[in-house]
């Protein structure tokens, strides 16, 4: 034996190193793995001396919070079966997925775990289902759009009460609105004179100092009366005072100069109302405007999202096999959308 070891010492050494490496690899892979435990035929999730918390305990404890989970599971199934997956929707879903990943990764290194928790709230059990979530989201938008297009006259009332419109702006930065410098006075006067002769779009393109809109002939997109409140869902970047002025104008009208003071300084604005026809806004060529209009319509009636989902759900065979599940679902719908089932 000694002779064999002596003659093959190098092979033995390599074997020991390999075994050591494998041993460490196995230890390292397993060190964070937890062991299973059962009590009274129930699987245990955690334990302390004299007490076990079982998966069934956890399920029972979740009861107060699972209405939204059940609703989302229901919603996903209805949407997925109601809207056909097209190439275009797949493409939109991939873009949405990339945007979500890019935003999440810029906020946290551990973004996969954060997204996994968030996805579970929306009815998806793992990070690998992110694309499914995105596809359902774009399908939901498609479903809402189809329904609203078909029932536009029914749903437009609540939205029109918010005075929807598209606007263009001209912005001019000043040091003190009450004491304009010679240059500022001259520029203001030039804008006023130009507006008498040329279109708002041409003047905005030539004079506006707003970097977001000047290259778009001053077009600032969609606004409504919700855009004036700071806590609104509006995505508009038009200052609240400018929106208020725009709400008071008719199509084709231009406001007087509006002074806006913010943390970045003082500016003078002119706003022009481009469109007030709700149907034209909803069907706008610009995806940004039509999407903003879509979400504004959905927000103008708190029960509309559910009404739309329900109209598609009626075309499917739906059965609640569990009384408690139905009760939780109904209670969630009632609390969130105010609907009666």
């Amino acid at each position, binding site marked *: 034996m000694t002779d064999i070891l002596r003659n093959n010492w190098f092979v033995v050494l390599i074997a020991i190193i390999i075994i050591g490496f494998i041993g460490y690899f196995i230890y390292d892979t397993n060190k964070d793995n937890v062991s299973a435990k059962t009590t009274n035929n129930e699987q245990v999730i955690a334990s302390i*001396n004299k007490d076990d918390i079982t*998966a069934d305990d*956890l399920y029972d404890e*979740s009861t*107060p919070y*699972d209405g939204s989970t*059940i609703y989302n599971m229901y919603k996903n199934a209805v949407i997925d079966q109601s809207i056909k997956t097209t190439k275009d929707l797949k493409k939109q879903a991939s873009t949405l997925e990339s945007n979500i990943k890019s935003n999440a990764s810029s906020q946290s290194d551990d973004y996969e775990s954060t997204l996994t928790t968030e996805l579970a*709230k929306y009815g998806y059990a793992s990070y690998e289902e992110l694309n499914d979530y995105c596809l359902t989201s774009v399908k939901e938008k498609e479903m809402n759009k189809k329904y609203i297009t078909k029932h536009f006259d029914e749903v437009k009332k609540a939205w029109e009460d918010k005075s929807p419109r598209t606007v263009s702006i001209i912005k001019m930065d000043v040091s003190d609105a009450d004491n304009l410098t010679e240059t500022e006075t001259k520029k203001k006067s030039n804008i006023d004179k130009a507006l008498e002769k040329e279109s708002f779009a041409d003047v905005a393109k030539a004079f506006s100092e707003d970097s977001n809109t000047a290259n778009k002939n001053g077009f600032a997109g969609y606004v409504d009366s919700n855009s004036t409140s700071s806590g609104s869902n509006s995505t508009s970047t038009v200052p609240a005072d400018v929106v208020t002025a725009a709400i008071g104008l008719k199509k084709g009208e231009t406001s007087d100069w509006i002074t806006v003071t913010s943390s970045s300084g003082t500016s003078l604005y002119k706003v022009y109302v481009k469109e007030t026809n709700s149907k034209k806004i909803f069907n706008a060529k610009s995806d940004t405007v039509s999407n903003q209009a879509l979400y504004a319509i959905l927000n103008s009636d708190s029960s509309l999202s559910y009404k739309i989902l329900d109209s598609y759900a009626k075309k499917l065979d739906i059965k609640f096999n569990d009384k408690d599940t139905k009760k939780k679902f109904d209670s969630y719908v009632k609390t969130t959308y105010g609907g009666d089932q």
Partner: protein
Amino acid sequence: MKKTPILFVCAAMMLTGCSGATATIKDKDETIMTIGDTKYTKGDEYDLLKISTGTDLTMELVKQAIYKQEVKVTKEMKEKAQEQVNNYKENMENFDEQIQSLGYKNSTQYMNKVLIPSLQASELTEKYFTDAKKDIQKTYKPSKARIIQCENKATAKKALKALKNGTDPEEVAQQYMVDSAKYSGKETLVTTKTTDLSTRLINTLSKTKKAGVIDEVFTNESSGTTYAYVAVLVSNTYKDIKDDVYTTLSSDDDVTKACLVYYLKKYNFEVHDQDVFNNLKANNPEYLVSRPDLSESDD
């Protein structure tokens, strides 16, 4: 040929060690709803709940299990909880409807699930200040002292001389403290959580064996200005200052966390579900008391 079994053993060992246990419910295959051709089971719902809120709820259940051992529900607690419910009902319209929308059947269930555990939590924190006396002394170095905040060392030296001559600290403060001083010779509790005093002063007060004037001038920078401090130790005997220590530290997040960790250790808390373990490992490794290496590596 002889090498084959060894390779098989190694491969099998590596493969079996790839995942930990996950706990699921008894009737996981029971169908809860069928939407067109999609069938959802209780297990599907449970999996989602476990991932989204499972870890927090597990810890809540663990806390309740600890309360059962440490803080019995008393008649007074039940009365207090009932009083809270009565107050809510008086001041809130549709209280019953509101708690039902949160998923509680009635006010009794809300009382048992929310209000009484909350009272038990306060009671447990208070108990912690007795049970973990040594830990608290070691970590927070509490002491009660009369401290005078002076503009500079020279003034502080004069104040120290007056204190040594037996003048009352508040009287000394009137003469030597800086304008709008935070420390004006009144009794105050000092711990390691006191951010505007020097570590040396906090340590000296905690270590000094006899009450009385501390024969040293301490300095500390606060908002860009360096102040000088003199101090008279009132007591660092834990039983004499325990109530003040509790009042001062009980609402501190670190203390609340340390309290839970203390009882998790006492009751050998263990996790038997990989998802919950991974979540705790990422967010609260200190709760995994059977794996102290996980929280140490974060330091």
